[in-house]
């Protein structure tokens, strides 16, 4: 069969370590298919000052029965926690099985391909331009 193109949109993987619970993906999703639940935890106070409070991710689920693979969540995420993968063979016999929880979304990260090379003549990304000469590919 055909080889998968570099930016094939098959399934979405989550790198939980990068997620800061900004909720942008859940808000921008046109299908309302990203479910995020979290709670606040207080870290022990340092020598001075009050205890730090951080958000802890309880649940991150994507309902692939609703998902229309637009990629808005991946583009909206400011912290590179969501990635495209080309995997497409995940049919289920029950529709509940199409809602992938965060452990299964982490599994998809193993299938995320390396980013394709820049097109010839493409401008450098903003970060490489800011880093000065010598940065960027090639």
């Amino acid at each position: 069969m055909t080889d998968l193109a570099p930016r094939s949109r098959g399934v979405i993987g989550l790198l939980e370590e990068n997620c800061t619970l900004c909720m942008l993906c859940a808000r921008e999703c046109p299908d309302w298919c990203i479910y995020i639940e979290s709670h606040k935890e207080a870290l022990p106070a340092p020598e001075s000052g009050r205890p730090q409070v951080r958000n802890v991710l309880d649940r991150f689920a994507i309902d692939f029965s609703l998902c229309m693979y637009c990629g808005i969540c991946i583009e909206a995420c400011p912290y590179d926690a969501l990635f495209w993968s080309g995997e497409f063979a995940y049919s289920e016999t029950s529709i509940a099985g199409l809602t992938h929880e965060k452990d299964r979304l982490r599994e998809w990260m193993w299938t995320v391909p390396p980013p394709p090379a820049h097109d010839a003549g493409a401008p450098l990304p903003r970060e490489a331009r800011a880093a000065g000469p010598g940065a960027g590919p090639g």
Partner: protein
Amino acid sequence: MDLPLPRLGGTRAGVALADAGPGPEGSGLGGGRAISLRVFEAGLACCAVEVSAALRRFAELAPQAEEGAGPPVHVLVVAGTVTDKLAPLVREAYRALPEPRLVLSFGACSNSGGPYWDSYCVTKGADQIIPVDVYVPGCPPRPEALVEGMRLLLDGVGAAS
């Protein structure tokens, strides 16, 4: 906290399976048992194009009826958005199928209403009106995804008998 880092560029067995051709004799769809298949496509919207592409490939995977294949299994592939106006016709198509019959829901719209879940005239999934055996996710799913969905569907048939 030690967490395993993902290996970029790895492939899963699932992709390799989809790339496999007909394979050795008897190892095709249905878990090695010869199955005669009749596929009825309810091509309601864009997913119909992908099903057409897949069914052409399907014919290569299982070219002709084999001896001893038994009575055909009828599969209704619902591909596309099920609107409220068309829902009774989809139900009639299912009722008109003779037994044994299976239903494969292809694409987000027929799985759950998909991107049109909030519309005023869309049935939120074919399983609202007919029983569905396999759901193939995608918008639209690749033609290869239909082949994989069929494998899952027919493996159930092979296991049941």
